[in-house]
């Protein structure tokens, strides 16, 4: 029997008995669609979690700093060090900052002390902060060295009795700064009682040398945190002294998030594997039923001169048509789901990851088709003509 005849006959049989096979095909197709979305979208979803969920996203932020109070030779992050850290695998973004403690302000005769944090334009993004009121200054303000600031919500309430303070002037060390916004999304009370200035402005205005000795670094996913944390001292050492360098990671929280994510991923893979397995059992079942209900047909074909291998090939290729057809359908559904999910989380996975997933799904489909279809096909091929023809 030629291959094109075999395929033509098998596809025709599957289409003609589509009602019998529909449930199995749908089960496998949904399994494939789920599998494709796990393969392609899991990293994007983790990424999205990092950005949008403070609890989970916080564990991917590393705080790197030089403890200059303990060092006789002050250190700060050099340009080459920052460039090398940005290029490190698993690093999504970083922000350079400098802190000045004990800064003072007078408002309506009252004295207030607070910390000033001089930050670059990426700080808000890295720390996942958002404006409670007004706006958070950006690249323009940093480049223009503008005299504007962002105020922590608790400090705003303490000084002004209100958080709606955008546009108000704030005096710091006898200099006036315009408040562009109030800071939200802060769980650290130290930061909620701080004032934030553009790094360039603070360098201009504050007396003495402003040392940018703090770095906040966000990893792409929590899986990257360990490797990035381990690599940082070596990279810093390549360009400057790592003396009194500290890398802070929220290890406990990270472990809890990783464990949670591992279980979720494991359960999804388990569910997908179960779907594939059930699909395989389904194919085995429908093929066994098909062999039984088509016993006379098998006898008739053998009477027409079909060899055992012709019957084996026909039933096996029908099983393959089912599983590969289901994989095709699943790839289509998976692509649609991927597009919808990508639209929702505003992120796109690499195309090659999708094609890798499709290839893997097709390999699974072939294995399931052959694995589940082999025994029924062998059974069909070994039928004796007379008993098959006389089967009622």
């Amino acid at each position, binding site marked *: *029997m*030629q291959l*094109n*005849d075999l395929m033509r*006959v098998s596809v*025709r049989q599957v289409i*003609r008995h589509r009602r019998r096979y529909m449930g199995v095909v749908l089960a496998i197709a949904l399994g494939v669609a789920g599998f494709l979305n796990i393969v392609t979208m899991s990293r994007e979803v983790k990424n999205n979690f990092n950005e949008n969920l403070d609890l989970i996203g916080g564990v991917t932020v590393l705080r790197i700093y030089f403890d200059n109070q303990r060092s006789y030779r002050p250190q700060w992050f050099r340009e080459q060090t920052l460039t090398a850290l940005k290029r490190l695998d698993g690093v999504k973004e970083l922000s350079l900052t400098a802190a000045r403690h004990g800064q003072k302000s007078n408002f309506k005769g009252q004295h207030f002390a607070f910390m000033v944090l001089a930050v670059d334009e990426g700080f808000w993004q890295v720390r996942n902060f958002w404006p409670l009121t007004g706006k958070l200054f950006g690249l323009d303000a940093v480049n223009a060295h503008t005299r504007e600031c962002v105020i922590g919500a608790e400090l705003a309430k303490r000084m002004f009795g209100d958080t709606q303070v955008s546009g108000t002037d704030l005096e710091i060390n006898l200099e006036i700064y315009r408040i562009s916004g109030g800071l939200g999304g802060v769980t650290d009370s130290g930061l909620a009682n701080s004032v934030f200035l553009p790094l360039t402005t603070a360098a201009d205005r504050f007396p003495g040398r402003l040392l940018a000795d703090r770095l906040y670094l966000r990893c792409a996913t929590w899986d990257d945190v360990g490797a990035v944390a381990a690599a940082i001292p070596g990279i810093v050492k390549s360009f400057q002294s790592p003396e009194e360098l500290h890398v802070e990671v929220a290890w406990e929280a990270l472990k809890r998030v990783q464990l949670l994510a591992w279980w979720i991923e494991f359960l999804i893979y388990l569910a997908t594997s179960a779907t594939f397995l059930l699909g395989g059992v389904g194919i085995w079942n429908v093929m066994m039923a098909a062999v039984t209900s088509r016993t*006379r*047909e098998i006898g*008739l*074909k*053998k*009477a*027409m*001169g*079909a*060899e*055992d291998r*012709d019957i084996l090939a026909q039933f096996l290729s029908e099983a393959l048509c089912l599983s590969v057809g289901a994989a095709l359908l699943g790839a289509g559904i998976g692509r649609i789901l991927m597009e919808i999910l990508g639209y929702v989380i505003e992120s796109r996975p690499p195309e090659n990851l999708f094609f890798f997933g499709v290839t893997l799904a097709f390999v699974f489909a072939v294995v399931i088709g052959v694995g589940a279809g082999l025994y029924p096909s062998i059974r069909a091929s070994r039928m*004796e*003509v*007379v008993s098959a*023809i006389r089967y009622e």
Partner: protein
Amino acid sequence: MNKSASSSPGNGALIRVTDLCKTYDNGVDLIQVLRNINFKVYPGEIMAIMGPSGSGKSTLLFILGIFLHPSSGSYFLGGQDVLSLDRNAQAEFRRNRVGFVFQSCDLLENSTVYENLEFPLIYAGVDRQDRPERIAVALERVNLGHRIHHSSNRLSGGERQRVAVARALVNQPQVILADEPTGQLDRSHGHSILDHFSEIVSDGKTAIIVVTHDPEIAAGCTRISSIRDGVLYEQ
């Protein structure tokens, strides 16, 4: 001609069966269904085999189609020792040298007439472009050319049996074995099938063996034999 063929006398006989026996073991007794069957069939003949139910008619036909193996005896077709063939050679023998028509008008369900006739050609390795003509010729011989693309489920009993005859013919076999081909047909359709058989053997190359218990059908054949208690009698 192979070694087996050279050991068989020709004498122009297409089929030569000698001392054929078939015994079944039901676990308690040995049941002898066929006893020392001897006969020859020549090209152009239509041989009717009659007998009561359970007399062994169908068993003999299944042995001739090598669906069953006899307990002893020899069977030559066109000089070839058929019983010495292995499983694959048996399949090749069935697709190239014999055509089978069953009692119950067995057509492939949910298939067209064309598809039913195409299968023997597929198994015989006939090129796809040659198939339509051969199928059309076979259908014309049973006057069903106009039904070529009809679904087999929508044919009448007589038409289904004629399609079965056309399917047996499509590979141009030397022998057609028909098991009660008119069993489910009325008299006029039964005679029509017999007319087709007569036309088929008129080429002088083909022989047909018909198992029937209908004396009228048997009377239309060129030879009549009957089986009683497993023994074949020529009439």
